[in-house]
């Protein structure tokens, strides 16, 4: 009886420890076998619009309140892309910041007016409890983002 109990505890412990070491899966997980360097996508983003890609990088920021978006870094300095998921369908934990991850989804293109950029930046500043000066926005933007379908993040 005691041996069986110890065996069961050992099994449970090993499962728990191995699950900590493995990457945590979100949404549909990953289906593509290869990642595309973000620099390749950003060099010619229109070629990737509506195409499914996988990006490998550092999770550099996550939506604080709903976990409904994150930014993943690219393979070159300053490179990053926003990953937006359907609210509630996937929820990224704030602890994912700084972790290595792979995100899969479809590249989308948005042409934002100056007013839309101001609204977006104000929203981000509000979330972080920071002040925002609309005068810092000089023009509209064309934005490319990933409509996130699945992800794997290590170390969570």
């Amino acid at each position, binding site marked *: 009886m005691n041996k069986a109990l110890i065996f069961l505890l050992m099994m449970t412990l090993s499962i728990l420890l191995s699950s900590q070491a493995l990457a945590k899966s979100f949404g549909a997980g990953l289906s593509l076998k290869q990642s595309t360097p973000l620099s390749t996508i950003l060099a010619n983003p229109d070629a990737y619009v509506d195409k499914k890609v996988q990006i490998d990088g*550092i999770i*550099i*920021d996550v939506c*604080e*309140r*709903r976990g409904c978006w994150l930014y993943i*870094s690219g393979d070159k*300095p*300053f490179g*990053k892309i926003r990953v937006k998921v359907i609210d*509630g369908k996937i*929820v990224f934990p*704030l*602890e994912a*910041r*700084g*972790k*290595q991850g792979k995100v899969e989804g479809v590249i989308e293109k948005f042409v934002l007016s100056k007013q839309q950029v101001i609204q977006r930046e104000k929203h981000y500043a509000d979330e972080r*409890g920071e002040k925002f000066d609309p005068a810092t926005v000089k023009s509209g933007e064309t934005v490319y983002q990933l409509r996130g379908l699945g992800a794997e993040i290590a*170390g969570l």
Partner: protein
Amino acid sequence: MNWRKWNYAIHRDLGFLCIGLTLIYALSGIAVNHIADWNPNYVIERVEAQIDPLPSGVINPIIIPQILQQLGELNGHENAFQPDPDNLWIYVEKRMIRVHLPSGSVKHERVKRRPFWYPLNFLHLNHPKKAWTWVADVYAGALFLLAISGMLMISKKTGLKTRGLVLTLAGIALPLLFLMVYY
């Protein structure tokens, strides 16, 4: 046993069964309903600090431990990222340190899960998915049965013909009123 006794038994036992889940959904419902006013899942402590200014541009990773040393951080960093030539973000064990290189100003964020609210919201917003989706569906069905069985628990004094009717109609009218105004 006639149908009234069955109705009473179903209402009573489902009621007991739903107490725990109702408390979770009710409390978390209030918490997430006011998400614009507070963060129901995390406590985020923000502290500002100052280090020696550094030149803008692509930084050499060697300077990251030096920055952390100035901040009194004893642990090594997990990762680092530069969103632009002026800024550096360093990640240290559930913390994020945003450094503005030319000014040396530092914003330090420490993230902690709210011990009571996080698990409640985790269940309410169905973060576990999988089998919890079924539990939530069964709970929704149980609430439906509670409403119907409650409506059928009529006594002559407080039944649907008098006070029960007024309160039931008020409960139905309230969402209809809001639909008429806002929809």
